[in-house]
């Protein structure tokens, strides 16, 4: 799939680029400014911008592992090659210190940098194009108010002709619709606010919608589920596979706190999103949840056993783990009973406890990617002084066949669905992305912030 995409991309973009580029692609540089000459920052504006930057999840991509926030350098593997995020601190040499407000807004909404170069759509300007003038200006004020960091990202690793930025003009011609957000007057203010954030800055569809071969979101299949860094971004709305259908209250809770007793904890790239959302105004989070809830509900599972409310069913000091149940004869079931059950049947409250697996979308969902990622890598320990779940990874203990058996057992037992398609490949992929992850992890410990 990846190889084919690249080849197609080369052909199509090459062709379009040839004809359209000269007409369409040229963007003029915007003169640089001397950021030191700028007056005192407008604190209120910058504060609003800080919150918008969190809603936009900017730090997640614009921060290298262990690096300073917004200083860039994160490697983003795409089907087309590796792109490194840029430094968006106001450092004049390596960041955006010489960018005027107009240059910033053009980059945000049109994907063109100050010098006039097209930006790769890994930067979701196809969403940010909806951002209002006021919000874009507030974000500019915020980014210009933070400490400058001198740090250059490594050059992108892309094959010809993708490394020629002019070809991006062709992509934009095909897929970028530069439209500001227009409120739907038939809906209330909260819904419109939610939609503005979800479709615009929040760029939820960037992960939760499927993409075509050229890496553009399929407009016809919004929120039907997508991929992000080897993780499945679940379908939202009517296509949601969550065993317990999401409602507005659950969405609000989940987005604000990163977990919900009936749905589990956010993992993978979504963990960063909820970390950021935990810091913004709760009315914005409620609005996003309100809009997302309006997309409709999945069917859920009728026979699902919901999680107990309140403190864990078992007295904690008597054991946050349950006794191991009797071991069935099939391989997957035996592994579940001997390896998983003691924590996942311990009923310790989320987010630190193991979710009851009948509630897990990873098991009931569209692809096995997240389930297998969690089994292989677990949830590694982090530091930072706040409680954080830890799940040991079992990739070094379980063989590929055992992981497949386990995943299929969990699928049939807890989701009541037939065995996974393509489980073997999912396991192989999880091992590869797991290795990549641990490679960046060990790099991270070397570089102090």
């Amino acid at each position, binding site marked *: 799939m990846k190889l084919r995409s690249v080849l197609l991309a080369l052909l199509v973009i090459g062709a379009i680029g040839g004809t359209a580029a000269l007409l369409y692609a040229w963007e003029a540089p915007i003169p640089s400014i001397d950021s030191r000459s700028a007056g005192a920052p407008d604190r209120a504006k910058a504060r609003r911008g800080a919150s918008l930057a969190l809603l936009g999840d900017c730090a997640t991509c614009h921060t290298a592992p262990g690096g300073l926030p917004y200083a860039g350098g994160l490697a983003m593997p795409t089907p087309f090659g590796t792109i490194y995020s840029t430094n968006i601190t106001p450092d004049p040499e390596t960041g955006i210190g010489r960018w005027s407000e107009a240059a910033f807004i053009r980059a945000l909404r049109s994907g063109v940098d100050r010098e006039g170069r097209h930006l790769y759509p890994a930067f979701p300007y196809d969403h940010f194009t909806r951002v209002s003038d006021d919000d874009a200006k507030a974000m500019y004020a915020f980014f210009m108010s933070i400490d400058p960091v001198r740090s250059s990202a490594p050059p992108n690793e892309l094959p010809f002709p993708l490394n020629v930025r002019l070809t991006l003009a062709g992509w934009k011609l095909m897929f970028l619709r530069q439209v500001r957000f227009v409120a739907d007057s038939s809906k209330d203010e909260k819904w419109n606010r939610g939609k503005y954030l979800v479709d615009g800055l929040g760029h939820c569809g960037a992960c939760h919608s499927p993409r075509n071969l050229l890496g553009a979101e399929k407009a016809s299949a919004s929120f039907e589920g997508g991929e992000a860094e080897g993780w499945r971004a679940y379908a939202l709305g009517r296509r949601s596979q969550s065993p317990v259908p999401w409602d507005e209250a659950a969405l609000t809770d989940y987005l604000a706190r990163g977990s919900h007793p009936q749905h589990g904890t956010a993992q993978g790239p979504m963990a960063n999103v909820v970390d950021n959302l935990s810091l913004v105004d709760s009315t914005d989070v409620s609005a996003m949840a309100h809009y997302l809830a309006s997309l409709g509900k999945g069917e859920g599972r009728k026979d699902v056993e919901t999680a107990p409310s309140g403190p864990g069913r078992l007295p904690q000091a008597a054991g946050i783990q349950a006794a191991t149940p009797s071991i069935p004869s099939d391989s997957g079931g035996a592994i579940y009973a001997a390896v998983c059950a003691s924590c996942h049947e311990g009923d310790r409250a989320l987010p630190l406890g193991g979710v009851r697996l009948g509630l897990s979308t990873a098991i009931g969902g569209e692809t096995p990617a997240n389930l297998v990622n969690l089994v292989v890598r677990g949830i590694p320990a982090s*530091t930072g002084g706040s409680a954080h779940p830890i799940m040991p990874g079992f990739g070094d203990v379980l063989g590929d066949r055992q992981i497949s058996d386990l995943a299929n057992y969990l699928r049939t037992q807890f989701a009541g669905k037939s065995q996974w398609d393509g489980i073997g490949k999912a396991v192989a992929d999880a091992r590869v992305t797991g290795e990549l992850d641990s490679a960046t992890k060990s790099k991270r410990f070397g570089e102090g912030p």
Partner: protein
Amino acid sequence: MTHAVSRRGVLAGAGALIIAFRLSGAHAQTETGTGGKPSKHGLPGSLDDTPRIDAWIRIDASGAATILTGKAELGQGLKTALLQVAAEELKLPLARLSLITADTARTPNEGYTAASHSMQDSGTAIRHAAAQAREILRDEAARRLGVPATSLQIRNGEVFGPNRMRLGYGELVRDQMLTVDAQQTSHLTSPADFVVMNQPVPRIDIPAKVTGGAAYVQDLRPEGMLHGRVVRPPSYGATLRDCDVAQVEQMGGIVKVVRDGNFLGVLADREWTAIQGMRTLAATTTWIEQQALPDSADLPAALMKLPSHDTTIHDTGNPGEPGILVEGTFSRPYLTHGSIGPSCAIAQFGDGKLTVWTHTQGVFFLRDAIAGMLRMPAENVRCIHAEGSGCYGHNGADDAAADAAMLALAMPGRPVRVQLMREQEHAWDPFGPGMVVKLRATVGGDGAIADWRHEVWSQSHMMRPGPPGALIAARLKADAFPPAPPVALAQPEGGGDRNAIPLYEIPNSKVVSHFLPDMPLRGSSMRSLGGYLNVLSIESVLDELAARSGQDPVTFRLRHIEDPRAREVIETAASRFGWAGRVKRSESTGFGFGFARYKNLEAWCAVAVEIEVPRQSGVVRVRRIVAAVDTGQVVNPDGIRNQIEGGILQSMSWTLFERVTFDRTRVTSVDWSAYPIMRFDSVPESVEVRLIDRPGDAFYGVAEAAQGPAGAAIANAIRDATGVRMYELPFTAARIKRAVAVRSEG
């Protein structure tokens, strides 16, 4: 000051120093449970309680020596250090010495192995007893050889006389020869002649620990041993409503289920079976719980509202002098000891007698408590120390011993091993108490501190056994014991108010200790007791005073301290660090300094740190730490370095990460996910420890010397890097980030 050996009265002898000693007249209840009373015999260290020389040193016919100590190895290197002291004074090679540690049937009673007192108490006693034993053997040789004792030389356990006459200790020793009380004076070896002391002798306990030897009580497997597990209630004061004992008793491999009031335990042939039985029993048990815990959202306020016994522990001049005012309310949450190995014990009952192998810090007190709990005569209970995982104070060791004793009584004849589960160790730990310090100080126009007022709120830091009610099992069993009464450790060592009296020269100062008899959460002794928060608060305010009056923090400290040893550690740390020429490598760089003399009585320690803390992230990365320490006479320099390094890193973890969490009913920080501590991503890039050599001086406790200064240095470095002063521990990235944001709004 207790048991310090004075250098006054030192007379030069033939290669030896004759040292007289004196004892202080402190009468307070002490953290070690011994001392603090008027001297009985005028003897140094623990010799005063146990003056008989053969209580400490025995020599057999082969000339090998057995050393006995009432103190315990806690991973601090005590065994090696005591053997070094004994070998030095006995003039025996280390290989010919063996050591017996705390055992109620065999060793002297030296109270608790606590308060950094072991070298002073036991090291001093063994040193003097060994020196006197050597003299006794030499005198015997002189008698047998018919020559004056002064003509004899001693090397390697042999006494050499004129004309190649020589007699080994084995030949010289006779029954009862060392069954004599120690004399008031000892002929101690001169530091100039040391061959074993002041040497980095490798620790004797490490080889087994790195090769899988039986190094811990967890590793003992007496014949016929059963595995026990307990089911703890879910919260303090919970009472058992119902449980299904029969269901568990029917499980294969379960030998017995024990229920006694609210105490529940299972016994099995295999450890995993015991755990499965415990989990099954727990799942069938229901409890009645109460909402009795304070509001954790504002713990400092909750603590300050509690009834208190107030004592002014220091009052000089006229507090309230004007000047540039600095004030702050500092607080720390409850902290858990966090032993990596949950507590464990083995107990065996038979013929009316109970033996317990335990990693308690006080075998004699534990013996009394267990005997009380089981209503047995104390002489029928024997407690033997066996190493556990590091405890850092009063952890679950005593509780596990009581649990094992309860279960052993139910299965006479069989040794019973109990190890607590992680969540039991975490939830039922006698925490280092949550505390508050309110400090208000001014610096006058002359740049000197004009005024100082320090108030500290804390519950007891001393809830160790002795009273049976200090043991969880004793509180749970049907004929339950009342909770042990709260103990306020008095000055000069203090408990919550340890190190609350500033060592600096301040003309107008007042220090008030608010002792809280209530114990919202179970609490007891944890490394440095109140010293950590008091030092962190004092040093933070001192730093702030220096900053507000435009003075360098180190110069400002030196300006206010006369004690030459304090000055020397401060100056040494500063110069090794390059304090005066320090240059920030980035805007995120911060430098910080901290100093204290532990308890104002023990080792002197100064710490300088360089950190990076980007204001956008609030994540503290420690680049460089330099510490200087004066611990008096050094026995094992590498051991001291190890203790200081460890103290610094543990204090970093307390300062940046740690907090016991709870709701209104239960403790919720029951594992490492809920109670994060330092992992390898947060270790400093370098730690350097400088020792100040004090040949011939007394021993000053070192294990708790670094915690206060290290925490303070980090707090001050955060201030230096970000401009914000942090008050509420732990100083997590999120809190620093928030504080920076609030300030920049300011």
